[in-house]
């Protein structure tokens, strides 16, 4: 038997095994940690909670939202009044269109509709329709609560919040 030849074959074999093991380890790490966590549902819930806190506190609608003249919250002052910032990192062209949308609908409790106030990318609103709801689409959350004004009149306030960010949350 040729000693030099067998040594070379054994070396090549060990390199091949080393490569296979390394590739398998990398593959296992990718399987385990490769898929992103989808936090959009929680994010939209937090956004809704933030807006609800801005609109109402301790059962009463805040004065910077509703005064004697009616609802003073508008599309123009919504972001500033509620201290919202829809800025995102500059990747996947996210800076071109907002990745967030929020809508606050005011109506009398068991009564007429009063006003809608919105902020963010309104194109996302379609994803709240039942036929578009899926893990691959933007996350939509609709929730409502009961609140009173200073005179004790009851209101129903419905908040719709949407978060897109599909590229970083869907594996």
């Amino acid at each position, binding site marked *: 038997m040729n000693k030099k030849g067998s040594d070379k074959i054994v070396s090549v074999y060990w390199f091949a095994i080393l490569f296979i093991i390394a590739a398998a380890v990398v593959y296992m790490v990718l399987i385990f940690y490769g898929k992103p966590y989808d936090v959009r549902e929680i994010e939209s819930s937090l956004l809704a*909670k933030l807006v609800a806190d801005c609109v109402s506190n301790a059962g009463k609608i805040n004065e910077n939202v509703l005064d004697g003249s009616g609802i003073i919250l508008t599309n123009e002052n919504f972001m500033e009044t509620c201290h919202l910032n829809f800025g995102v990192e500059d990747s996947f062209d996210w800076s071109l269109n907002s990745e967030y949308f929020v809508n606050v609908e005011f109506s009398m409790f068991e009564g007429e509709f009063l006003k809608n106030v919105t902020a963010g990318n309104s194109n996302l609103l379609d994803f709240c329709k039942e036929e578009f709801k899926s893990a691959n689409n933007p996350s939509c959350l609709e*929730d409502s*609560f*009961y609140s009173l004004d200073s005179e004790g009149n009851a209101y129903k306030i419905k908040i719709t919040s949407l978060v897109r960010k599909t590229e970083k949350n869907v594996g």
Partner: protein
Amino acid sequence: MLDKQVLKRSSIHSCFFPKNTNAQVSDAVTWMVATIVIIVLLGFSIYLTSYFEILNKFDFSDAGLVKGNLAEKSLYGYLLKDLNGKNVYSTLGEDKNFTGEVALLAVKIFPDDELFWTGFFGKPNNYFGSQKDNLYPPITTSFYNLRVKQYHVCLTKSISLGEEFKQFNTLENVLRSDALFRLEVCEVND
């Protein structure tokens, strides 16, 4: 000295790689079996990793409530609402009874009986039935408690009604009292 070393190395080498062809075949089989064992072990490791990946994948919908998250705000509004010149909080505190107009307003505010339960702590009522969360809450005058129980995620909010509650310092006394009004919001996670 050098010759001895060469001779020794050659004898070791001939021990592992003898010139007999049958032994060479045997070596090749050994290497092949070793390779197959390594590949099988790696395959098993990959299978285990993909199995545990499912366990590692944390479902954020189990982390807390999503729907009904704003119910706590509704509860405060409900307790402040004036009914016949007295707010719901005072009415409940004095009457110690969850019934009539007070209960009907609660049903309107919390219409989904799959999601909500309100009433006096520990007492089933005609409007919402029995409590969804049977575990006892911690004893504080007002608390915010999130608890994951089986497939339910429950948010509970309890409000003490009046001064009476302050003298209760044990769980039994709290359970005997009529002074704890409670809201439960429970989501069922699949």
